[in-house]
């Protein structure tokens, strides 16, 4: 190995060390933050799942009333969609478009 190669290797070694140091420093500081973000996302996910499946658990879905007025707007799009998917008739009882 030439001297230039040695210098390049030493420089790469230093760069790796500094990079690891910065990554470690970031990990120290973001530990708490990461936990809070994950918890917040889990709360949102739990609410979403509850809204999706609350009817199955016997809880009336409050979103149903609010989205009822969207029905006429969605009907045409839904009809086109199920035909595109190869289903000649509406697969859902709630959407009687045809």
């Amino acid at each position, binding site marked *: 190995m030439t001297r230039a190669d040695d210098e390049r290797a030493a420089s790469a070694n230093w760069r790796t060390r500094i990079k690891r140091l910065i990554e470690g420093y970031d990990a120290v500081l973001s530990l708490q933050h990461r*936990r809070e973000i994950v918890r917040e996302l889990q709360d949102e996910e739990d609410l979403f799942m509850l809204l999706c499946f609350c009817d199955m658990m016997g809880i009336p879905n409050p979103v149903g009333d609010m989205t009822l007025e969207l029905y006429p707007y969605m009907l045409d799009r839904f009809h086109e969609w199920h035909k595109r998917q190869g289903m000649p008739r509406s697969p859902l009882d709630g959407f009687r478009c045809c």
Partner: protein
Amino acid sequence: MNAIWIAIFGAVCFVMGYRFYSKFIAERIYRLDPDFQTPAHAYQDGVDYVPTNKWILWGHHFTSVAGAAPIVGPAIAIYWGWLPAILWVVLGTVFAAGVHDFGAVVLSNRHKGHSIGTLANKLIGQRAKLLFLFIILILVLMINAVFAWVIAKLFITFPASVLSVFIQIPLAVWIGYRVYRHSGSMLLPSVIALAVMYGAALLASEVPFLQIDLVSWFGGGDTAVAGGFDATSMAFLVWIVVLMAYVYIASTLPVWKLLQPRDYINSHQLVVGLALLYLGLLVGAPEMTAPSVNGETDVSWYPLLFITIACGAISGFHGLVASGTTSKQLDKETDARFIGYGGALGEGMLAMIAIIAVGTLFASSADFTATYSSFSAAGSSGLGSFVKGAGQLAGNLGIPEHMGSTLVAVIVVSFAATTLDTAVRLMRYIIAELGNEYGMPVIARKHVATSIAVITSAALVILPEGPNGFGSGGYLLWPLFGTSNQLLAGITLMLVSVWLKRQGRPVVFTLVPMLFLLVMTLWAMAQQVIFTWSGFGDADRNLLLFTFGSLIMVFTLWILLEASRSFRQDPTAVQESLSSDDTR
């Protein structure tokens, strides 16, 4: 004496303490087992229970426990001279704080990562839970009042720091949204935020127009403004109202929006602050000009020193962090020594540089005595002296002293503000829990509980009147903050001792610091409550401090009784209640 020798003495004691004493505690007393399955592995959920590298966890633990408290206490306690303060910081850290923090991690680790409050409930029962809640309530109330006073005082003394501190809020919100909505690392945005903050601080220290100096806006000094308030009192009132409005909003927002990104930025500030001061010390090698022992004191150091320096020597708050989050992330049980004991040493280093900064500030011993003329003068001017002393240390690195002082003021205010909004949030949770406990669900509501927390804290900070009139007496609460913090540490040490006794191991290493703390607390409070705040003899009566001091005395006696009862209790019954939680 050259201050470097003091730093070397402290560092050598800390290294020896870690190398020998913590090793002895780990092997002979706590008996750490490398094969023990930690809660982080047993209950791994990707959120709270996550096995974490010990260096990363130590850094996280240290940045969570370090704040403004290990700066304020030592800056006041140097009143008795730097030697007693240094000795208490060093010996307290090595023999009390290290064992306490380390013990809290181990105890929690052995019981599913439960917090100290839950363990107190399991070990002693419902009474202990209520005692624990009331002590924490008093502690957070004191934290809110003391740190609101600290921030208002620094804003008035160092008006160049205000702009930078307020700029941090939108920057933190920006980082919070950016990371939450678009993910990615916080490192670069937070470094940019820090650069903007420090740029604003340096600019404001040079340009008077950017200094938000309410006292001069109100006409300066003793000018009567309105309602019998002079300019300084009015400035204080305005800052307290602004701060309380801010903490109300900050503590009701989701944590990722403001609190967490601010904590992240402040963690950089801890590193910057420590590096600035220790490098300034090494380069400047200043002499300690404060007396080693102050012979002209109006209040004896014994036992007040032990409650004036709480964080930095031993602090119950560390037990909350150690058992609340740290123990749930322990990869191996043997890491507890490095993280728990090492975290206490980091806090000791912060307290030590605070003592050195104040001890090297003055031109002579006479100047020191003129500023620290009495214990109440020390309470009032200690923090300002630290900021100036730290500015002087930073000056050794080529930073002009006034700029250095502004930077340090920004750092201390940031620490205090983070502690303040975290404490208000914590107080809200405790009020809600007490509301549920006593069948008053209305006060458990978020905005009702927060309003109670904010209004009582504001009342407590503005009620004590110091020698300079309205708003100047917030520092009178400092001994109460220290005692409530030590009480919490006493509970943790008691629980660790009870656990050790049930395991048939020696308890002297945890029981002695516990008894020492509780006796000092009881003694200090008895002295203050009976001979000072009650109006005994020539002393001025202070009903507010008398009430809180009496409450703390009652709680201390209560803990001593509970401790005595727990030690006399049937070992098998307690062992069963504990072993049911033992993850082993």
